[in-house]
């Protein structure tokens, strides 16, 4: 038995990637919506279990895949958000107006997206990372385009063109990275992360810088860093809500993770253009532009998409600073994904598109409104949630390293938080918007009516609880992992 | 605290109380003479007080316990302040407590009590007077405190007794700052006592009056208490001015009967001189419009500030 287990262990990462992909293909073939939804949940749950099992194993390289401190927390998070999103989507698919055909497409794309996301994190080879992110992009483009209509198509087109451009640039950067390693590795280019890190110090600094510039612009487009962010609000707003949740929760993280891998390599060479400074600059720009743009939003999901840009910018600032600030960046990524997907879940449950329609939600529908208020407070960086802890550490570190940075950082955080809290006030205090109550879905429901609200809201509470735990009682093991991740990211 | 000091203290307080109405009477008499009238006897205020105290007081229907309690409180607070200001002798029993800021505080307490009494019945005049009285005080207090600052710098203390002792020794000498502080304190004294040009103590039922407007609803013993309080306040201020600017002749502590008599004589002479000065000043000047008063007191404030700054410059402390 133990031997069988020992045999199984090396296949775990591969299984984690293969299971959703195979499942996605299978889901495309299943006509029954109810069965598909259940299978979707089951697959996501299996993925989460696999990720947990992987977390219990020691780090190591396993063929083309590897686990280390940098990808494991994100992987766990991704598997969890995948599971909760699957639950949520089972509850809300009919309401979103999916036909059986688009439902099938959605499920398939969702699982493939999950698989690609896991692969992007697990890949030890930067080329593979690139392939995975490209796949994830295509899958999410498909999901965005599922809703017919002018806006959805525009969003998908924009996503496709900008994403395509970004991915091409990232590939060029990847190739240049390989070329940079070529002379040191004796004429063989390699994209293995371990190998690249081994030779980065002797490689040509100029080439590394060139590679990083392309990788930054390429993956930065995916991560939604300003000024490469333009696809992001529209994609978040026009796809299914579940898709918005995984876009903010997973795709952005995966893209930033890819940048961090590049930075981890390039940063080892002292003769490069400082990768941290570039990341920091884009992060700061993202923060400021997003903070000010939040004030003019009317569409709820665009609003929160801009908030995602802000938070990715914050994480980028953290990683750009390096050192303990990288830990803040990691923690911020985790906290942001949890809370942001919770927000999208509540938005989906509230079923309202415009911010103005959300006004007075809390008094009117307390079970949706108050969690939304709490989640918005959390995303605004208020204690005791983990975003407060990570923002505190970030500010503290930036004050210690780059005192001038504190001023724009604090201003950006403040302006963004004020914009969020203006909406919090509207939601908590009204005046109530003219009620546009959605009739509870009857036709095409895939889960029993009594279960649907639970399936939709339990993930919200779970995410908030986890964010709370991360903020108040971060497990020492996880903290050690984050510190190690920060060390890898530089 | 020796029995001698306590005795001195008691004599001082008794003298203050006894002389206060006389001083008011004296000023009135002097003013009348200056205006060519014969004027009532200086004893007239005492006679008025005695008569008022015996009359049955009349309280308004809407009056509360405040109308009854505040006159006692105000006079007690003023008396306490008066007990602290040196008159004919220094080193009295309460000398350690004789702090200038405390004197200001006690005067503020009696002013507050007066304003409460004025507001108690709920009349237009009472409220008007109270509002004006408190507003004027807002300008008088900073001028007073800044004058105190000058003394605190010169004498190293805000204790009246210590200041008196330091000045009697002639230590600080003659300074421009003292002159400025004197002017400021004079203005404050005029405002605090409701004298010309801030208020006219001789009128009733004028829209511009302040002090008298607050007492329109009082009568009998309560009015007597208020009149006594006003008189004592004037006494206190003149004594204060005398103690600060004319410290000569004040009997040192425990100087025996001879020293006391000399000190008493000096004190009475000083008070008389100040009363004459006040009467002359009041006869020569007209009352201001109400809203000119802040300018008047503001000027006093600036003079005191200027005095302090001159001190900083001249003492070379900077």
């Amino acid at each position, binding site marked *: 038995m133990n031997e069988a287990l020992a045999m199984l262990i090396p296949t775990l990462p591969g299984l984690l990637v293969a299971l959703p992909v195979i499942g996605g293909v299978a889901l495309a073939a299943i006509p029954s919506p109810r069965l598909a939804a259940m299978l979707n949940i089951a697959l996501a749950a299996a993925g989460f279990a696999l990720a947990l099992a992987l977390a219990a194993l020691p780090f190591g390289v396993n063929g083309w895949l590897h686990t280390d401190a940098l990808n494991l927390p994100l992987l766990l998070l991704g598997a969890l958000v995948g599971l909760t999103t699957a639950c949520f989507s089972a509850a809300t698919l009919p309401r979103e107006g999916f036909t059986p055909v688009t439902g099938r497409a959605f499920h398939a794309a969702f699982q493939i997206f999950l698989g690609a996301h896991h692969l992007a994190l697990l890949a030890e080879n930067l080329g593979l990372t690139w392939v995975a992110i490209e796949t994830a992009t295509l899958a999410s483009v498909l999901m965005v385009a599922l809703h017919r209509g002018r806006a959805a198509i525009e969003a998908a087109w924009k996503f496709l063109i900008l994403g395509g451009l970004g991915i091409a640039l990232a590939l060029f950067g990847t190739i240049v990275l390989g070329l940079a390693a070529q002379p040191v590795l004796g004429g063989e280019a390699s994209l293995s992360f371990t190998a690249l890190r081994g030779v980065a110090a002797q490689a040509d600094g100029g080439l590394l810088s060139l590679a990083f510039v392309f990788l930054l612009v390429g993956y930065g487009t995916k991560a939604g860093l300003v000024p*490469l962010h333009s696809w992001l609000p529209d994609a978040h707003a026009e796809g299914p809500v579940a898709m918005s949740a995984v876009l903010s929760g997973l795709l952005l993280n995966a893209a930033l993770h890819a940048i961090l891998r590049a930075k981890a390599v390039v940063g080892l060479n002292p003769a490069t253009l400082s990768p941290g400074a570039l990341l920091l600059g884009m992060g700061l720009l993202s923060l400021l532009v997003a903070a000010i743009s939040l004030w003019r939003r009317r569409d709820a999901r665009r609003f929160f998409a801009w908030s995602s840009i802000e938070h990715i910018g914050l994480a980028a600032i953290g990683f750009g600073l390096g050192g303990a600030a990288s830990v803040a960046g990691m923690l911020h990524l985790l906290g942001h994904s949890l809370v942001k997907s919770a927000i999208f879940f509540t938005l989906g449950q509230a079923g309202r598109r415009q911010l103005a329609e959300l006004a007075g939600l809390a008094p009117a529908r307390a079970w949706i409104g108050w969690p939304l208020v709490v989640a918005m407070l959390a995303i605004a960086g208020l204690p005791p949630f983990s975003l407060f802890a990570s923002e505190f550490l970030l500010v503290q570190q930036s004050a210690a390293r780059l005192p001038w940075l504190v001023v724009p950082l604090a201003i950006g955080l403040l302006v963004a938080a004020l914009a969020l809290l203006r909406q919090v006030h509207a939601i908590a205090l009204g005046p109530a918007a003219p009620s546009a109550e959605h009739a509870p879905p009857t036709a095409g429901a895939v889960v029993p009516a009594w279960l649907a609200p639970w399936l939709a809201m339990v993930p919200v509470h779970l995410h908030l609880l986890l964010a709370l735990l991360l903020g108040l009682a971060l497990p020492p093991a996880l903290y050690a992992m984050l510190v190690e991740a920060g060390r890898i990211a530089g | 605290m020796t029995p001698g000091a306590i005795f001195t203290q008691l004599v001082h307080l008794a003298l203050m109380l006894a002389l206060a109405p006389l001083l008011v009477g004296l000023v009135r008499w002097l003013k009348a003479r200056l205006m060519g009238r014969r004027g009532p006897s200086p004893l007239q205020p005492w006679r008025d007080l005695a008569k008022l105290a015996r009359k049955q007081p009349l309280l308004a229907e809407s009056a509360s316990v405040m109308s009854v309690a505040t006159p006692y409180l105000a006079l007690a607070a003023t008396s306490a302040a008066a007990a602290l200001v040196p008159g004919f002798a220094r080193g009295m029993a309460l000398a350690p407590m004789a702090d200038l800021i405390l004197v200001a505080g006690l005067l503020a307490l009696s002013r507050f009590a007066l304003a409460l009494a004025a507001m108690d019945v709920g009349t237009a005049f009472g409220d008007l007077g109270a509002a004006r009285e408190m507003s004027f005080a807002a300008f008088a207090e900073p001028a007073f405190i800044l004058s105190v600052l000058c003394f605190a710098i010169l004498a190293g203390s805000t204790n009246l007794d210590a200041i008196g002792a330091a000045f009697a020794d002639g230590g600080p000498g003659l300074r421009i700052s003292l002159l400025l502080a004197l002017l400021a304190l004079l203005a404050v004294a005029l405002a605090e006592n409701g004298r010309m040009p801030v208020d006219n103590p001789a009128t009733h039922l004028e829209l511009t009056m302040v002090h008298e407007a607050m007492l329109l609803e009082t009568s009998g013993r309560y009015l007597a208490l208020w009149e006594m309080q006003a008189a004592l306040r004037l006494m206190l201020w003149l004594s204060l001015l005398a103690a600060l600017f004319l410290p000569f002749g004040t009997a040192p502590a425990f100087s025996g009967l001879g020293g006391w008599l000399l000190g008493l004589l000096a004190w009475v002479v000083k008070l008389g001189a100040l009363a004459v000065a006040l009467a002359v000043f009041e006869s020569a000047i007209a009352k201001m419009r109400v809203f000119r008063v802040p300018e008047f007191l503001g000027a006093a404030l600036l003079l005191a*500030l200027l005095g302090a700054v001159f001190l900083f410059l001249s003492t070379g402390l900077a």
Partner: protein
Amino acid sequence: MSAVLATLLLMLLPLALAGGGAARWPALARLVHGGCFLVSLGFAALGVAVLVFGGGDPLLLPVGPPWAPLSLALDGLSAWFLLLLGLVGAATGLFAWTHEAEAPPRRLLCYPLFLFGMALCLGAADGFTLILGFEAMSLASWGLLVARAMETRGEGERLAARLYLGFALFGAACLIPAIGLMGGLAGDLSFAGLRAAPMQGGMAALVMALVLLGAGSKAGLVPLHGWLPIAHPVAPAGVSALMSGAMTKVALYVVARLVLDLGGPAQPPAWGAPLLVIGAASALFGALRATQEVDGKVLLACSTIEHVGLVAMGLGLSAVLRGADLGPLASVAAGAALLHALGHALFKTLLFLSAGEVEHGAGSRRLDALGGLIHAMPLVALCALFGAAAAAALPPLVGFAGEWLLLQALLSAWRVGALWVQVMVAAVTAVVALSTALGAMAMLRFWGLCFLGRARTPRTLGAQDAAPPARAALVALVVLATGAGLLPGSLLALGAPAVAQVSGHAGLVVAGPWSVGAATAASAYWPLGVLLLVAIVAAALVAGLRRLSLQPAARGPVWDGGFIAPPAHLPFGDPATQASAAGFAQPLRRMLGTRLLMAREAVHFAAPGDPAPARLEAGFRDPVLPAFLRPLLIARDRLAQAAEWLRDLSIRQFLGIAFGTLLLLLALLALAGPP
């Protein structure tokens, strides 16, 4: 000691949960208030115990982020403020027992958390816990305002809650970088670590500015005071009392802790100057506004600004004097600040609770709708009179003791030597005296218009005096405030550790049990002596006059300057012959208000022959908040407008931007050239 604090803090959390559960079981409300009362008493007792026996070692809590584990510790400074918080909390707990028994669960949930946040902030032994407590305090109090706004559904309440939260966030956005700057690269945020690595030069100035902006906005210091009179009065009376009495003090504690205790020892005299000047401006503005406001609770909130300013002045002056190596004087100033902080907490709580009783009894907070309440609610009136007199700095009450010490320190501060300090101190001294007198005027106006005179509305006549638990709270506060006023020396001897921490000098030189003073000023204040003196003279007067004048007073109608007798349907006279709130404020409005508060007034006379009365229209507005908020809002809107062009671009243009970014980075690479 820290463990006791942790236990007390932990007890508040189930209370908050119980408050949340009050939606289903209303009886839980009483549990919440009783529990908060007991925990507050515990806080006070703990504060005294720490002041007497010392605080012991910090306690590391098993929660919090690993880089900044939460830690608790109590030293003199925090114990002093904890004592203050405990007293205020206990009083408001009693008050709430009477008046908040049917409070909505939202409020019951936030109330214990509010106490929790304040106590956590005070008990923190590191920067992170401090911020956490500070934020918890802000958020919980915001929750209380939101609960109120949901209750009343008023636009004013909503605006107040929003403004409040905005300033709370602003405070956090300033304090967190300040702590970050203090922590430096080592990132050790424990107070011991911060003390060991003092700031210098420009960094210190930056920290000072940030702390003043952050904690100062919470304390209501000018120029960030504008939100306070809007937000504090919105809450129910007990919460307003906690906000004004305790929360502003917690903010001042943060200032004292960060600027004076952790950052101050090696600083030059100029270190305290900003605090001194800002404090003076706050005192003046607050007092002046208090003389003009027409809503009782707003008036009290403005008076809070005044007193907070005075406390801040004490702290600043202490730093100035310490920088000039005048330790004994610095301790006088610090003592003044601490004493006044405690005194203000007591009398302001008393006043707010009284205002709550008045609102409850007479149905209004507007001064123009009150009057004559001393007849209907004599106990509340007397208690409030004590509070008002203390706030007016009348001897021998507690307000005077604090201001006496402050003035003594100010009057001795010329010894610092530098001319700029001397001139500044002289100017500031004048401002203190001015604001004290203005404060007295404000308090007279508040108390007189509420309780004296004749009823301005019939509703006032139906008022009833306070119910027993609330009555106990009022009386206890009177006793405490009077006691603190009469024994400032003993109190400061108790608070000697706190004074030493703020001033860097061990204790007041002269602080006997019956007196308080400063050796360098060679003067002392004996409050008990003053009380005895006044009492003896008053007794003698009473006794003497009783012999002279035997008849009891007769009652008659009001003469009222000869106004005609009121008609029968106005049994209490014509209220129009009493001063209105605006009318009573008129002298100061004209003297100072037109300059400082943009006050205006206009009298509209009726046409000749029309018997209608003339109308006085008067008003003012505080120019400070709009002066900096409006440009910021305009800038925000402009920027947001400008940022919209990013949204309006076509896909081609977006591509162009991405392309441009790439080219820019490449150009940067080309410029950087080969290494």
